[in-house]
């Protein structure tokens, strides 16, 4: 259970680097452009260029490399799966054969490409979450979605939901631990048995957790109303996002980079 405490959403690492201090909107847009780039290029040199951009960002952010590599570890299974699927399932020029399994040249190329794309995607987006606090990220998303309000995108509501979710994650984790301990004190066993038995033993935890969560939601709604909350209309903000010349420079740089790389590779 102690591991649950270590899960911090977004895994934000506070810092004072240039990347940390960029406006969250800049970082979101840049990440978005970078993702587009990854899907546009399909040569190894193109991926190498994308990796270069990421390396530059990592260097500027002064993030410890181990945090970035840690993000790749959960992908190990998917990487192996992708590689083997492509290696063995692609038709083409056979390099070598083990029993009925054939490895083709095309398969190796396609597989390695997919994996580079996957790794670059995860590393790139993790730089966004590692350098931006969840609060700023939420503010950034709200601000970027605001122009879409006319199309019926509930920007403020989405941001409010994210804020409340972030606020209550630690509270609910604490509560889960408390309920588990209470059940364990009465002889509940969460550790033994096969996966189905273990899943089944979670039911007595989930039910009180849900009931309490609904009660909390009710209380919170009343408290918010008592504090004058009535949606995003006419609301001012405590924190105001500010675009500086650094943001402009960063955005132009990333945009130009993306266009150039996607044209040439």
């Amino acid at each position, binding site marked *: 259970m102690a591991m649950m405490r270590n899960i911090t959403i977004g895994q934000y690492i506070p810092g004072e680097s240039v990347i940390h201090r960029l406006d969250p909107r800049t970082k979101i847009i840049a990440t978005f452009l970078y993702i587009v780039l990854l899907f546009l290029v399909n040569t190894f040199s193109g991926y190498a260029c994308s990796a270069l951009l990421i390396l530059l960002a990592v260097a500027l952010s002064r993030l410890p490399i181990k945090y970035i590599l840690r993000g790749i570890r959960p992908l190990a299974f998917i990487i192996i799966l992708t590689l083997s699927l492509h290696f063995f399932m692609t038709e083409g020029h056979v390099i070598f054969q083990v029993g009925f399994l054939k490895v083709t040249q095309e398969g190796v190329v396609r597989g390695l490409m997919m994996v580079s794309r996957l790794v670059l995607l995860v590393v790139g987006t993790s730089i966004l979450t590692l350098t931006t606090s*969840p*609060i700023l990220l939420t503010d950034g998303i709200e601000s970027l979605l605001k122009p879409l309000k006319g199309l019926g995108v509930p920007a403020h509501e989405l941001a409010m939901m994210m*804020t*409340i979710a*972030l*606020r209550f994650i*630690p*509270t609910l984790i*604490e509560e889960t631990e408390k309920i588990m301990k209470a059940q364990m004190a009465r002889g509940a066993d969460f550790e033994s048995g096969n996966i189905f038995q273990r899943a089944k033993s979670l039911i007595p935890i989930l039910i009180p957790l849900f009931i309490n969560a609904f*009660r*909390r939601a009710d*209380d*919170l709604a*009343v*408290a*918010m*109303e*008592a*504090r*004058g*909350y*009535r949606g995003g209309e*006419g*609301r*001012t*903000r*405590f*924190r*105001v996002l500010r675009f500086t010349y650094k943001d402009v420079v960063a955005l132009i740089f990333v945009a130009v980079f993306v266009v150039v790389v996607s044209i040439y590779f």
Partner: protein
Amino acid sequence: MAEALIKFTDVSFSYSADSPQEFEALTGINLEIEAGEFVAVLGHNGSGKSTLAKHINALLVPTAGNVVVAGIDTRDFDRVWEIRQNVGMVFQNPDNQLVATTVEEDVAFGPENLGIPTPEIHRRVDEALELVGMNEFRLRSPHQLSGGQKQRVAIAGMIAMRPRCIVLDEPTAMLDPVGRQEVMDTVLKLNRQEGITIVLITHAMEEAILADRIVVMEEGRVVLTGVPRAVFSQVETLTQLRLDVPQVTALANRLRQRGYDQIPNNILTIEEMVNVLCQLE
């Protein structure tokens, strides 16, 4: 005399009115609370004291009679927000009333809703956190705080809205003794130093003693009202209402029953008791 800040006139309230489950929580309440007053509302569970509290900032409106707050009838739907700005409310569970992920942003939540300009919000947040002594915790997230600290943040969130009155609905019920002390110190400071009207819903007698006036409720009615000393001297009535009296008051009462008539029946604090006992022959 000026109009009272809060005025209940023949207020009755039923939950699920006009249905088989109808339950009358308040019956014929008449109550006036003056600006600057510190009123404690005492009562057993289910006596209607929380329902009364929710009427003060229009979270509930009466089924009969009316409640007027700062000259505004709570049934005037268009002015509900004005009432909520005038009356802040602090609830029992410290976890379920903080909205934001950091202390300072939570305090800013109310002013943001009121549409106050950003620089002014910052000033108010600084001021409110200073007043409740939570300035050094401003960047913490709520789950890193103790219960008492969370309640102080909730109170700061109210102060930042500059209300004339703060209603606290059993704010200490879920706290440890240290937390209780913190919250009560803050409440007293707000009343004495800032002149904010306080309505404290509680069933802790030690807290009620601090008030200017006590209102005792039972089954949706106001059964007793007066200064703490007068209310607590009526030990028998309170016992009938299943309410405790402060320990020293109970002790004084028992000593009187044993024949120590020199002991007055309105002792509220341990110091008073010590003084009286030392003067006994």
